[in-house]
């Protein structure tokens, strides 16, 4: 695997044990204000400010609280968490301990997707090693009276369980069906207790921020999207792999870095993201630009974009939990529409209806899956309509 030579934040050197011990010496509000100052936002896709989440969980009332690491990484084209879980497990667990200290939780859970079962053994060994160093357990990280431990819970193969309330349902032994929000997990989460859920990358980034300071962190990225981001790059480029790059980098710059210039389009954010055509490659990858959990799939000139749209829609048809109608039926209807297009049998009038159905799904679906399922469809139709019609209709 290619890993970027850049060692900016996440891949930069850190003495994990020292960083953690330093951190737990600080008063909790100081850590929260450092995180607030850094403007770190969650790296799992939704971009919720980490300081706000930790603060809400910290001030929530509850005898028992939980810190959960979302290691369900199922978004097509994303694999940066796998790299972190493999090579940076100690930093991840330290980040969870830090979070446990701030929110006042004793228990940490890593929800690891079933597809990554092969990582479990080494992760457990790292946890055990950290217990041995007394970073976990009673008086964790040398802090009197602070107790924290971590265990791994295996997923069972369901993309929707990456959505945090579905994840919690799954942990509780149910079907992974998203809950209504509010209440949010920070107040009513796992077993009804305040629960703070973060992405793998967020925990690691937070550890670096608290050790090295918000000021340093903000030297990377843009004003609204501070710091760096891991990008999982795949598809038609010479150097696929995981790259740490400053937030706000343009798609063009990223393509130059991975030797993928000359591409026809780039899918940003996986199946639930959007398809960006070459004319928009000057757009920035940032919360204020094209937002992403880090999945970048490069499509060369020879790729058939309709095939891409079909592949993604099949994914959503299969992974929809089926709980609400716009998503359950909408994904099926859009897929049928794509098949019609593929056979050269879709009228423009019907395509307009499908587009409006997609827009309805975006606003009326219960959770992020249904809300984002039409994104790829809509952006591919918008940008490649003439290509699709030219190649399909003329042959019949």
């Amino acid at each position: 695997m290619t890993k970027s030579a850049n060692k900016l934040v996440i891949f930069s050197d850190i003495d994990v044990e020292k960083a953690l011990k330093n951190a737990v010496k600080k008063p909790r509000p100081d850590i929260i204000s450092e995180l607030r100052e850094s403007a770190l936002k969650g790296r799992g896709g939704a971009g919720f400010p980490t300081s706000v989440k930790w603060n809400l969980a910290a001030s929530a009332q509850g005898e028992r609280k939980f810190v959960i690491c979302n290691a369900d990484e199922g978004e097509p084209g994303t694999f940066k968490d796998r790299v972190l879980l493999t090579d940076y497990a100690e930093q991840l667990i330290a980040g969870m301990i830090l979070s446990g200290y701030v929110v006042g939780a004793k228990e940490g859970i890593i929800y690891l997707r079933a597809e990554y079962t092969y990582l479990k053994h080494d992760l457990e060994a790292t946890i055990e090693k950290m217990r041995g160093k007394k970073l976990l357990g009673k008086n964790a990280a040398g802090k009197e009276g602070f107790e924290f431990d971590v265990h791994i819970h295996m997923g069972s193969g369901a993309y929707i369980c990456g959505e945090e309330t579905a994840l919690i349902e799954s942990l509780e032994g149910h079907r992974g069906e998203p809950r209504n929000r509010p209440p949010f997990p920070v107040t009513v989460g796992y077993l009804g207790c305040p629960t703070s859920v973060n992405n793998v990358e967020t925990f690691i980034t937070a550890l670096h921020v608290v050790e090295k300071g918000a000021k340093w962190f903000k030297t990377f990225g843009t004003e609204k999207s501070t710091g760096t981001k891991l990008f999982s790059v795949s598809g038609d480029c010479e150097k696929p792999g995981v790259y740490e790059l400053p937030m706000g980098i343009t798609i063009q710059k990223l393509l130059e870095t991975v030797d993928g210039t000359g591409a026809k389009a780039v899918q940003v954010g996986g199946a639930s993201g959007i398809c960006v055509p070459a004319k928009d490659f000057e757009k920035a990858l940032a919360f204020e630009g094209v937002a992403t959990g880090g999945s970048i799939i490069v499509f060369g000139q020879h790729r058939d974009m309709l095939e891409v749209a079909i592949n993604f829609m099949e994914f959503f048809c299969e992974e929809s939990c089926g709980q609400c109608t716009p998503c359950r039926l909408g994904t099926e209807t859009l897929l049928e529409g794509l098949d019609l297009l593929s056979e050269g049998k879709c009228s423009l009038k019907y395509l307009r209806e499908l587009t409006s159905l997609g827009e309805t799904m975006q606003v009326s679906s219960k959770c992020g899956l249904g809300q984002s399922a039409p994104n790829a469809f809509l952006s591919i139709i918008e940008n490649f309509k003439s290509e699709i019609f030219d190649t399909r209709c003329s042959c019949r």
Partner: protein
Amino acid sequence: MLASERDQLKSEIIKMAKKHDHHRSGLIPVLQHVQNVSRHISPEAMQDIAEAFKIHPVEVHGVVSFYSFLSTEKKGKFVVRLCRTITCDMAGNEAVGNQLENELGIEFGETTSDGMFTLEFTNCLGMCDQGPAMLVNDDIHTKVTPEKVADIIDGYKNRFGAHVTTGEHS
């Protein structure tokens, strides 16, 4: 399933449920164990599990049917899951899929008659930079080519003959 096997499994279920204080949060770990041991979750096992957690068997079935790594149908000793996400598609998973069908003599969704292999598609395996990717039970294989398929499959066949005992999950 032999009566003695069911008793054996039932006692494991009871033991595991107890470890979780019979709390429902232990349900999926128990289901995962049963799936590993008997390659599916039979109606009898669902009964036993429901009893152990004091819930209705329908509840258990609802959970089993939700997750793609749990099944009511008996799977092969080795479950081959080929990634069908667009990146693996672009890297040539179709040829790999064809070759898997040829080597195993079955189609996707089927299990070989000797109960050794089940062939399935799966969604993103998180190996998009090294596709085509596939899982065989818990092992990941990357940059799979049609030529490599036979060797990979043989590797598991031989492992079975040599030292894998029934129920062990590699």
